[in-house]
């Protein structure tokens, strides 16, 4: 297991470098002169030059690259062009909200999705199975912002159960009301995914020989499903859910925009509109790091959960 963990961690490093390089290339793909794009047509030559120096754009490319990598590794993600605060600060301001939303969504997705997925697999071709598959298919077809808007219209505007715009109350109930619709939006989509994956995984497991052996031993259905089938079925489910995390981040960006929640999503939108390329670059780096961390953790979790990897 230790060997596996070390191998996995080592793998994360080149991945990080590849991503950073890709981001570097991407940001410099902006057509035209970055400085004039940022400052606009009215900028004076002097201010353009000052900006270029400040951004290091007058240096040769490889020097820029090296200082970029150096900055990132030392934790300096640059400064937001529009607010002047460091990127790290901007992120930290909104991070709690994003984490809160993500955790709530994952909880809803898993808590609702697992039982339906299991029920669908066990009651193969029964109405539960068809219903779950249909619902999850529809759920997966909604782009996150579409479902968000529909939820907003129905529950907030028409029915008035939830606030339309994020209220700034700090009471627990207020926070829950603010959190409910966006978390539900993300959670439903995740649930659709979890139901699919659980069903597929459990179907595979239930057909395995050791399930038949357990049944031949006299193991009762409940224990058969929970202890024997699920325990084995969880292994691929965990992996796949971890991979879903990337999509979750993408969806949460859209959700935050729709429900006007502070978070990394709104930050990106603001940066896009303000052409704040430093902030954008910093945010991309943060996302990349998040994705790598989650993928690595998922792989490590997989190593812990599957005894065949744990005891090699």
């Amino acid at each position, binding site marked *: 297991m230790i060997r596996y963990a070390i191998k996995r961690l080592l793998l994360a490093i080149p991945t990080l470098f590849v991503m950073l390089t890709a981001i570097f290339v991407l940001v410099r793909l902006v057509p035209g002169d970055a400085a004039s794009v940022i400052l606009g047509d009215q900028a004076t030559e002097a201010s353009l030059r000052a900006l270029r120096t400040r951004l290091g754009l007058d240096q040769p490319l490889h020097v820029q690259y090296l200082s970029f990598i150096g900055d990132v590794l030392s934790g300096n993600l640059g400064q937001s062009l529009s607010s002047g605060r460091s990127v790290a600060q901007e992120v930290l301001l909104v991070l709690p909200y994003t984490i809160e939303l993500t955790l709530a969504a994952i909880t809803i997705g898993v808590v609702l999705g697992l039982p339906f997925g299991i029920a669908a697999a066990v009651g193969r071709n029964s109405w539960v199975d068809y219903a779950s598959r249909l619902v999850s298919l529809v759920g997966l*077809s909604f782009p996150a912002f*579409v479902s968000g808007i529909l939820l907003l219209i129905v529950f907030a505007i028409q029915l008035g159960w939830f606030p339309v715009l994020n209220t700034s109350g700090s009471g627990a109930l207020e926070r829950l009301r603010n959190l409910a619709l966006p978390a539900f939006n993300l959670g439903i989509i995740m649930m659709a995914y979890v139901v699919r994956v659980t069903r597929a995984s459990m179907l595979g497991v239930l057909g395995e020989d050791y399930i038949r052996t357990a049944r031949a031993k006299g193991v009762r259905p409940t224990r058969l499903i929970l202890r024997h089938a699920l325990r084995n079925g969880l292994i691929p489910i965990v992996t796949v859910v971890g991979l879903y995390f990337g999509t979750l981040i993408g969806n949460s960006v859209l959700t935050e925009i729709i429900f006007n929640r502070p978070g990394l999503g709104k930050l990106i939108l603001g940066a896009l509109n303000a052409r704040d390329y430093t902030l954008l670059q910093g945010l991309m780096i943060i996302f990349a790091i998040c994705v790598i961390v989650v993928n690595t953790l998922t792989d490590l979790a997989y190593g812990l959960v599957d005894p065949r990897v744990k005891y090699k």
Partner: protein
Amino acid sequence: MAATATLVSPRPGTLWTAFASNRLFWVGLVLLAAIIIVAVFAPLIAPHDPLEQNIVVRLEPPSAEFLLGTDGYGRDVLSRLIFGARISLLVGFLAILVAMIIGATIGIVAGYVGGRFDQLVMGLLDVMLSFPTLLLGLMIAAMLGASLQNLIIAIAITEIAPFARVARAPTISLKQRDFVEAGRALGFGPVRIMGVHILPNMISDVIVMSSLWMASAIRTEASLSFIGLGVPPPTPTWGSMIREGFENILDGWWLAVFPSLAILVTVLALNLLGDALRDAIDPKLRGE
């Protein structure tokens, strides 16, 4: 000496019966066909000019004249919806086509060459695959600027990795097969072998997956348009219509709801189609 005949994948007959019997497949197909027809014949079907502004009738709810209502500039929502189908389908189709060509090529080459090169490519692919599609598309589109062309490029890039993956796996198993050995013995160059012998045998797998990914591409396109990174106004796209609807959400529910439904139906149709196709290839998922 006659050239070695190519072996066609032996499955088409059974494959067809497998998914033709799936009801959902037909639902998806019919829906998709309807949408394509609407898009192609848009100028004939649309009751009004999608770009025609008429401030007098702005923000009208659905009525006899404007079946789905009007937007903030008095433009007919239904007509804009119909023309929006063109953009979504066009972008989805082209992006997937480009991604398929580039991705499959990368996959076949990597699979065929093998060794270090393959490992390197796979590593890069894994990195790309793990990155959220939307964010990747967002970043690329943000950097390149909003236009139809850039949108297609951005989305295509996000879908390259899956195609490469799907093309690589059968290549690896195919390259061990006898007819490839025979081709090599006959002195066929690698390009010929890859193009003429390996490609036709795995093309069906790739095409099957493309419908699923087209659904993903259209979702991404809508999302990017919604954020503002899509085709610039006044061209109607479903994503930007939803954005307008969102901004005016208190003025008219119909502005956001109808384009939302349009996206939903299109993506659903493609998902149904793609699922049925994929299930036909992988029976275990059907629960048998």
